[in-house]
């Protein structure tokens, strides 16, 4: 079986979705036999090459998140919004009713403004606001079983089917 190339990224998320992926435990070794990890926080590849599948955790809170997301969309045949933050902004989007400038000023007095720091967006966005998303996998985070079922279906060329009880909307 040809190995599928998989890229993953954590944007404005907490890494919990990546941790849930690792929560497939020993099944991880089966997965690693079938896929080749490309750009991912779990590898040292900093940019994505052509990939079959892209898993995106987290929403968009700054310009860099948008750049990384666009790169992934361009590189990946299938792009998946993994977890609450990628799907609708999640908890970080609670800041959307606050004024970013006021927030930053009250915390830092002089706002960090070095060119090395990406510009914060005034609102946290879902990734579907910016690119086309092929699948949405809900949960905070989606359970390891949901992630496994989803990946196992795709790897076997089946349309992913997650039955009752596998998906949680927490």
């Amino acid at each position, binding site marked *: 079986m040809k190995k599928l190339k998989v890229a993953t990224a*954590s944007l*404005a*998320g*907490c*890494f*919990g*979705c*990546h*941790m*849930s992926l*690792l*929560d497939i*435990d*020993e099944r*991880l*070794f089966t997965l*690693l036999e079938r896929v*080749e*990890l490309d750009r*991912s*926080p*779990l*590898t*040292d*590849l*900093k940019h994505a090459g052509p990939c079959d599948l892209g898993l995106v955790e987290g929403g968009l*809170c*700054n310009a*860099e998140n948008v750049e990384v997301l666009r790169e992934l969309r361009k590189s990946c045949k299938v792009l998946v919004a993994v977890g609450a933050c990628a799907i609708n902004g*999640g*908890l*970080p989007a*609670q*800041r959307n*009713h*606050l004024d970013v400038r006021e*927030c*930053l000023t009250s*915390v*830092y*007095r*002089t706002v*960090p*403004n*070095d060119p*090395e*720091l*990406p510009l*914060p967006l005034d609102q946290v966005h879902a990734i579907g606001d910016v690119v086309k998303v092929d699948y949405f996998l809900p949960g*905070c*985070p989606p359970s*390891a079983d949901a992630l496994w079922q989803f990946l196992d279906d795709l790897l076997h060329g089946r349309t992913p089917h997650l039955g009752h009880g596998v998906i949680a909307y*927490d």
Partner: protein
Amino acid sequence: MTEAPPATRRVAIDPLTRVEGHGKITLRLGADGRVQQARLHIVEFRGFERFIEGRPYWEVPVMVQRLCGICPVSHHLAASKAMDAVLGVTPTPTATAVRRLMHYGQILQSHALHFFHLASPDLLFGFDSEASRRNLQAVAAEHPELARRGVLLRRFGQEVIRITAGKRIHGTGSLPGGVNKAVTAEERDALKAALPEVLAWAKEGVALVKRLHRERWELYESFGAAPCGLLSLVGEGGRLELYDGVLRARSADGRVLFDGADPKGFRALIAEEVKPWSYMKFPYLVALGPERGSYKVGPLARLQNCDFISTPLAEAERVTFRAAHGGGLTHAPLAYHWARLIELLHAAEVIAELLERPELVGGDLLARGERTGEGVGVIEAPRGTLIHHYRVGADDLVTSCNLIVSTTHNNQAMNDAVAEVARRYLDGVEPTEPLLNHLEVAIRAFDPCLSCATHALGKMPLEVVVEDAAGAELGRASKRGG
């Protein structure tokens, strides 16, 4: 106007990988190729504290877990402890036992994740091995048994969390005033059955890291080393204690700066600076001042700050560790790995002890108290001292929230390590990918949680330094923390 700055070249490692969260390292190289500047930047800003204000207090222990998916339990418990104080509650023995078990499960899984899944490729294959090989996939291919044990150790820690918190990631088991579920006898027995293997693997983990460290002693002890102070909680008699205790700090030469300090008074002990090139602040020990007061937290700080470990296997390893360093302090970032695996072994031993406690399966879960309206919760998260501070109004809504996360304490120490490695390996030479990985190796040793660091703002007494382009100080301003 001023003269044009000399031509410099910027080299960036962006994004940092095999660490949790978002950061990058930049180097400025002069025309002669000499390193002029090396910095670790934290590039995201989220500001959880602001939107927690106005929420009902009982939501907070669950909300704050979304700061971090690697150590959600730390935030869950620090917030619960702070809210206990808000409610004036002393938790029941069962609640305390369940929470402690949850916490040590968290220490175990997080330390296993960091070493086996993230950092081990650098140590097993070499800092300059090719980028495509430096990941868990290659470890699984070349050291399958080691990778399997790492995965199973982490699984055990995650199962402890699932049983105590209800869910492996972002659980709901702990609440203001106690817990919502004890451990059943069946759950306890299932964990006990797995313990012999877990303890054996934990011991082998320490043996492996000790061997790696000893084989390349000179390198490991000097790589990125920069002296600074230590801060951690300690328990009674100066014991290593991760769930609850008093604050102790040492200077870089091991002198005790303060001890037995009530964590509630943290704002008199530490203050912070802001720099324009990072969203992460720079804390320092007030006793030593902003210039000399930087300090480190986490396994290496804790292991050298405590006087003893209460569990026998880990204590024997601590004694070996200290003796190997002649009884003095080591400030080598790579010694973090060794210390971390000793703590992993300690966590397994503590879990074994807790599983024998009768109160763990008790039924008295929640306590009531006399409302105070304010609370500080401090815990030793896997990465170091974590502080949550809340005020709650009579209407049950949070009026102020201040989170000081572990990784922030290490900001200056990590920057010093990067600068030291840059000077040693990148001064006047062409910065190749394997050489640049050396900078990441230094950062990884601290196991930074940049996600936590960017979610939380942290309000300590604040000192702002204004610098010109060359880094010369133009002025300062300060204010008291919230």
